[in-house]
């Protein structure tokens, strides 16, 4: 296979290692995941049953929370909208199963895997770094593990989520903004 046939992640041009070795923040891209956007009406039991049938669990209904079950992560994006992150090898199967289970329902499932990417930010200064460009209060007493939020980081919209203690963060960002955000992060992380 020639080089041109290989998949290239959106952030392939960003060299995170410049700061990762010594600093209190560790940045990493989690490329090549399956991203499925799911829309439907949670007040219709046929819809929630279809989701349970395909994924094995119910969609998170509390605003700005996410669920992780095995290798799947499901974010609340809106009262009728969710994002499912899956390993790439399961993505096509899941999409097909959804297509079948949701037939006849007012709903949609769309593969947006190539449209966005994920950046993971860990380390003691991770929160401080994000707070430099994010208008939301990210204090661990307010933004707790299990919480997610669509908000701004720098000048781009991101889907932010937090796990664990000490908090580690994941950012879902659109591909076309990822280069900007990667460079913004490299600049912002310099002080740590």
């Amino acid at each position, binding site marked *: 296979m020639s080089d041109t046939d290989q998949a290239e992640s959106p952030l392939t041009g960003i060299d995170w290692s410049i700061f990762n070795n010594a600093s209190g923040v560790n940045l990493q891209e989690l490329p090549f995941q399956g991203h499925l956007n799911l829309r439907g009406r949670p007040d219709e039991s046929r819809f929630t049953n279809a989701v349970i049938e395909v994924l094995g669990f119910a969609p998170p209904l509390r*605003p*700005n929370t996410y669920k992780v079950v095995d290798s799947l992560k499901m974010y609340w994006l809106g*009262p009728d909208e969710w994002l499912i992150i899956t390993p790439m090898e399961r993505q096509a199967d899941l999409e097909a199963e959804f297509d079948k289970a949701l037939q006849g329902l007012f709903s949609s499932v769309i593969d947006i895997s190539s449209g966005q990417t994920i950046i993971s930010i860990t380390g003691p200064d991770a929160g401080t770094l994000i707070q430099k460009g994010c*208008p939301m209060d990210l204090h661990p007493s307010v933004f707790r593990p299990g919480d997610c*939020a*669509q*908000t*701004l980081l720098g000048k781009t919209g991101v889907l932010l989520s937090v796990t664990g203690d000490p908090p580690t963060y994941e950012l879902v960002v659109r591909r076309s903004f990822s280069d900007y955000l990667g460079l913004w992060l490299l600049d912002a992380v310099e002080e740590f």
Partner: protein
Amino acid sequence: MLEIPCPWCGLRCESEFSYGGEAHIVRPENPEALNDEAWADYLFMRKNPRGPHLEQWHHVYGCRRWFNVKRDTLSYRIECSYRVGEQPPEGEI
């Protein structure tokens, strides 16, 4: 900077939102039956009050829902927010 209460996401910073003008403007059912004056009234004429104002906001960088806000145009104080399709708390439009 305003802090705007999104009915879904709670208090968020103004930079996450975009403004959508006066709320509760209903499109006439038979636009073709209107004269120019009534149509222009629907399209262009707004209350522009000095004081409490019912207006639309879009949580464009958040949950991407439209909702309504009651804001005082003089003090910028936001009294409440409510979902599209709901009436303002005192039932007045």
